[in-house]
């Protein structure tokens, strides 16, 4: 088992290097630091000296891959590639283009993100599994048909509609919870309710339909027929056999997104003004702060790859048929 995990991690390394190279090429080769400086400082009326200074402040004035003028090992280390891309591997994100420490910002901002995404995931799973199981239980009846129709309709509505509609409803008529913002400590809870709820509603359509299919597939299997033939009650079959076996694909599907919960949701966070990593990224995109976007791209990939590895491990744990090679 341990050797399997190690092998999976070793396999992930080249992927990370690939991601690193792609982001490096995107940010430093396709567009040179000169372009970035001009973009940041204003397009036309910018002096050459200002560009040089901007690059120098951020260490973008070094050679890209190979520093001819430096000594020994510094030939490689004193370059943009080493300073800005290789260091990401040890999670040294450096400073943003506006001079803040990215690593510190990330460690601060991941908590609000988690405060939204973790409850959303747990409550979402509970709700969708319940709905999916209910529809599967009533398969073929009016409950099922109207439920599926409702799911298709809800799937077709833009996610932005749920957010805007929800904020409007709460803000105009109900005044139960604040419509956006954030606070420290336990005061934050009342700010998280609305985003979590809206995230839940937005996901109902697709997830419920998906889970319903999974449960129906399980219901068609032989062991269910055997269980019924033995005389087990319908509910017992449903909860003990169908639900438990149906949970395997659902939970292993969830594992892959677990690490990415740190990143948060870009859209939800920016709509509800939650100071998490999602809104951090959006702000960086709008300010055109390349250093932050680059760090977030790398961080996101790392988390996704961790998710992939966890998925593989969880498969081998729950399903003995998956071989370890």
């Amino acid at each position, binding site marked *: 088992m341990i050797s399997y995990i190690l092998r999976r991690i070793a396999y992930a390394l080249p992927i990370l290097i690939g991601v690193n190279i792609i982001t490096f090429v995107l940010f430093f080769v396709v*567009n040179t630091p000169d372009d*970035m400086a001009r*973009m940041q400082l204003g397009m036309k009326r910018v002096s050459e000296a200002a560009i040089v200074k901007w690059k120098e402040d951020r260490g973008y004035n070094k050679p890209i891959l190979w520093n001819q003028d430096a000594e020994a090992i510094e030939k490689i280390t004193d370059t943009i590639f080493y300073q800005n891309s290789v260091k990401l591997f040890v999670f040294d994100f450096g400073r943003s283009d506006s001079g803040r420490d990215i690593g510190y910002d990330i460690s601060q901002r991941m908590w609000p993100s988690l405060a939204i995404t973790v409850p959303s995931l747990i409550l979402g799973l509970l709700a969708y599994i319940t709905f999916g199981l209910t529809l599967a239980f009533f398969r073929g009846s009016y409950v099922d048909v109207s439920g599926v129709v409702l799911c298709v309709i809800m*799937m*077709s509505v833009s996610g932005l509609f749920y957010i805007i509609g929800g904020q*409007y409803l709460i803000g105009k008529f109900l005044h139960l919870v604040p419509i956006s913002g954030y606070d420290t400590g336990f005061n934050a809870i009342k700010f998280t309710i609305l985003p979590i709820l809206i995230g839940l509603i937005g996901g109902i359509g697709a997830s419920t339909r998906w889970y319903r299919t999974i449960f129906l597939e399980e219901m068609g299997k032989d062991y269910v027929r055997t269980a019924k033939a033995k005389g087990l009650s319908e509910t017992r079959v449903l909860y003990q056999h169908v639900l438990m076996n149906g949970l395997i694909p659902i939970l292993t599907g969830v594992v892959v997104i677990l690490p990415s919960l740190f990143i948060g949701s870009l859209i939800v966070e920016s709509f509800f003004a939650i100071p998490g990593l999602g809104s951090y990224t959006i702000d960086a995109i709008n300010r055109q702060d390349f250093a932050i*976007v680059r760090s977030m791209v790398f961080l996101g990939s790392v988390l*996704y790859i961790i998710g992939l590895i966890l998925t593989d491990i969880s498969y081998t744990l729950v399903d003995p048929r998956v071989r370890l090679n």
Partner: protein
Amino acid sequence: MPVIFITDALIFLLVFMVIAFVFYARRHEHLRAPWHEVARRPLAMSAAIVLSVYIIFGLLDSLHFHPKLEATETSGTIYSTEISSMLDILLDDLRQNTERTYSAPLASYAFAKEMIDQPNGKQLRGYPRLKYGGAHLGNPESETVGDITKRILQGLICGLLISLLISSLIIIALGKKYQSDFRETSKKCLRNELDVSWNAILVTLSIVIVTICCLYNLSQYYHVLGTDKVGQDVLYQALKSIRTGLVIGTLTTLVMLPFAIMMGLMAGYFRGWIDDVIQYLYTTLNSIPGVLLIAASILLLQVYISNHADDFTSLEQRADLRLLFLCIILGITSWTGLCRLLRAETLKLREVDYVQAAQAFGVGNFSIMLRHLLPNVMHIVMISIVLDFSGLVLAEAVLSYINIGVDPSMNSWGNMINGARLEMAREPIVWWSLAAAFIFMFVLVLAANLFSDAVRDAFDPRLRQF
């Protein structure tokens, strides 16, 4: 003088490919049978009619040209510098009749109070009349409701007549085909006893025609969906946005399709190190969060555009380049799923007897892939094209909201939502831009979802939704 944008060219390439595919599919039983299955489903056919109406609008909006200003004796014909499309010509009234600022749907008065000059020289603070909306009414307070009802009724009658005419023409044509008289054929149509579910088609077509007639009749005298901040008709914007939505939904797939098919087939067929390389490639691309990759690329495109501002002759061209670029980036982030499916299927297929036989006969690898493997994975390609479509249309709105979508100057539902979002705090609320964008998007995506469900069920019975 025609102007052809890159996306226009690609759209017509796509139309050409679809037509070619239809001819191909008609001659091959394994493709014809599932499509017949789709055609027998009433819901799928209704969805198909709605989709085709959108596509017609989108295609009309893809024929761009410089409109002719005037022909003079001396210098020949003068062309305007601005670029219009066929749709602009059809909706010329809607485009030209701009108000000063916001106005509510079907309103005759402006949305905000202004100082109005009275005939006696004094000024009065109140809601001014609109320049075009309800301009024909003498006394809007009392006449509006009656006038609107009258025009809706006119549209209703006109629409019903047109759809009756079209329905009878279709039934006569069907009667010729099945060699039965008019009554017999219409009975069969109603009972859905024919090969194609004509009752659903005719009913949906009638509803669409009646809606269009009513909207057309009203839009001559009112702003049916109100006007936006700069006084532009919202209905016009929503109709213009159709093209953007369709381009994102279809061109993205078109752009990524060659890569996905080629890579998927090669990985599955050759296995070994080619498989490893391709798997590495798509895992790497997949592991970069999609939104961030798009954001990074759009940022870079902005840098490129602002550094090469002189290369673009017009704003439209620049917006078009950005749209194409967005399609390409979305394609890069979304081809991996299809590639993985194709690889898995090819791995299975390469062990099948006829492929082994072809190899034994010494058929080249390339021809085996083209002649024996590709036709047998086509159903996967088709399912994924239709399934991806609705997700891409919805993604456009979200991306435009974070400012990494289409160019802000382009008409798109995302931009409409983005623009209207800032007005949510106003009292009374400016809801019509939002509502229009959401409704247009909802109808398109719902139709696409229903249609893709039917296509998937027909082509892949194993995946059938119970």
